[in-house]
């Protein structure tokens, strides 16, 4: 039987110290939501309490966003680009990870190292020459520019993640299938992939999240307002000169984060395992 003092101890040594971290993490997101629902009169009143909404909730900022801006076009653009880039990258990643995990072939090790190096290349190193390449391919100012360039950072990530995952799957079943006359592609699709579904989901979730959140390439490669993605559109079209539509900006930030937060709530464990896969394995 624990004494009440001992039972209370974790409250002070554990939950109390965790609290500032949780507040630090969540407060900006809370403040984003509160600002987006607050009427302008209260928003720009220096004497009102900024944390709360006391003079009524409004959906005005969301209306402004829907009616006066191309917000939903940006949303759809982000969706198209993210889905396309994710599908392409996961397929290419699965194909590349399979031989790296299962086969021995000349150049295999070097290719693995090359994948690893590209995995670590930040987009800000290559955006200038890439914009020239995109130009020469005739893709600038179209969503294709993003569908084609996002796989440059998604494929190394997916390959690396799936490579680690495939290696944890025992190879015996595949060998049996091959002795029964399956070819490599059949073995990969029918035997390995069904077992590796969690790894594939994880790769797809991260690829989608990284595409949805991407900012630099979208800013550089696509300039027409109606073709912008979510992140760039909200940032560049809602600030006109020195006038800031803070309510609208925060409404845009809320809806722009929503798909990722929803996916996150449903697939939390996949996010955690994907995040730690690179570092711990």
């Amino acid at each position, binding site marked *: 039987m624990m004494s009440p003092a001992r039972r209370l101890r974790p409250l002070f040594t554990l939950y109390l110290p965790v609290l500032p971290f949780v507040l630090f993490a969540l407060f900006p997101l809370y403040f984003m939501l509160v600002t987006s629902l607050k009427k302008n009169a209260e928003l720009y009143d220096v004497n009102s309490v900024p944390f709360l909404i006391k003079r009524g909730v409004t959906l005005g900022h969301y209306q402004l966003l829907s009616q006066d801006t191309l917000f939903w076009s940006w949303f759809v653009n982000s969706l198209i680009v993210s889905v396309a880039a994710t599908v392409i990258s996961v397929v290419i990643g699965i194909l590349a990870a399979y031989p790296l995990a299962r086969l021995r072939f000349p150049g295999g090790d070097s290719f693995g190292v090359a994948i690893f190096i590209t995995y670590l290349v930040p987009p800000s190193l290559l955006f200038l020459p890439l914009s020239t390449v995109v130009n020469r391919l005739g893709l600038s100012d179209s969503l294709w520019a993003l569908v084609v360039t996002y796989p440059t950072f998604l494929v190394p990530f997916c390959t690396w993640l799936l490579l680690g995952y495939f290696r944890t799957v025992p190879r015996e079943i595949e060998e049996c299938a091959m002795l029964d006359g399956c070819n490599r592609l059949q073995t990969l699709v029918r035997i390995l992939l069904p077992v590796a579904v969690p790894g594939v989901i994880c790769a797809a979730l991260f690829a989608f999240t990284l595409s949805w959140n991407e900012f630099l390439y979208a800013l550089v490669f696509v300039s027409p307002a109606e073709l912008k993605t979510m992140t760039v559109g909200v940032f560049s079209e809602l600030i006109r000169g020195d006038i800031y539509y803070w309510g609208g900006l925060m409404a845009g930030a809320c809806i722009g984060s929503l798909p990722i937060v929803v996916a996150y709530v449903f697939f939390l464990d996949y996010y955690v395992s994907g995040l730690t896969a690179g*570092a711990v394995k």
Partner: protein
Amino acid sequence: MADEDVARLAARGDAETARLSDFLVRDTPVAYAFIAPAFFLLLFLVAYPFVLSLWFSLSDARVGETGNFIGLDNFARLLRSGIFLQTLQNSIVFTAAALTLKTVLGMALALLLFRLVRFKRLIRGAILLPFIVPTALSTLVWWWMFEPLYSVVNWTLKNLHLVNHDIPWLPDPYLAMFTVVLVNTWRGLPFFAITLLAGLVAIPRELYEAAESDGAGPVGRFWHVTVPLLKPVLAVVFLFSAIFTLADFNIVYVLTKGGPMNMTHLFATYSFALGLQSGQIGQGAAVSLFLFPILLAVVFVQLRLVRKSTDL
């Protein structure tokens, strides 16, 4: 006689199995076919742009012009330019400060999360959130929180009577650097905490019990068990984050655009300003290439770490 036959048959069986599994892992044409899409993608959209970037950095290329070879002029000019030297200094300060904060706070947070029993999932989920939401959008709310007139931070400080005037967070060069470091820490801390937590979970409990029976207190156990065993994970997380902190673009671009007075420019934002906004692609490429030696060093160390851990 019979035994020998059995032994011989068995030996042949072993050899055949060995040959068979050797055959099963050797299929070069298929390997190349599977790798081809990734290979060509990396060749045309990573390796080629990289070579192009090297060429740009050695030329006087401008937007729409290929430019002429000018040797190392771009680099020489950069090293004489006050703005670039400021950028270099900013990058070092920004990366060192953000990495220190993320490592120390990340370690502390991981140790706390590790001991959680109740609301474990909920708290971990909340902690990870800043890492998942789009940085360009979440940085907007930080901008709003530090807005000169309506800053919620200033409002709170004033109402707690800690200050009696508005603090100019973003217009002041030093405070602006503080702010971008803070936002970078906010976004990157979950990555450190959650990954280090995974490392903590992997440490066998027996080691702690052994250390405890040898008379080690909590501090002793931390330094003699946790830290040595967490070192590989810590190194990987640290190096990974070092690259992406140094190469940060979104936070600085959204919050300060490199200002005030270039005091928060990093390689990425300065390269963007030179290469795209003033059209000097050669100079811009030269700036971004300063990221490359650091990238190489990190790759080198990480590959050694990865190899070491797979050998063991």
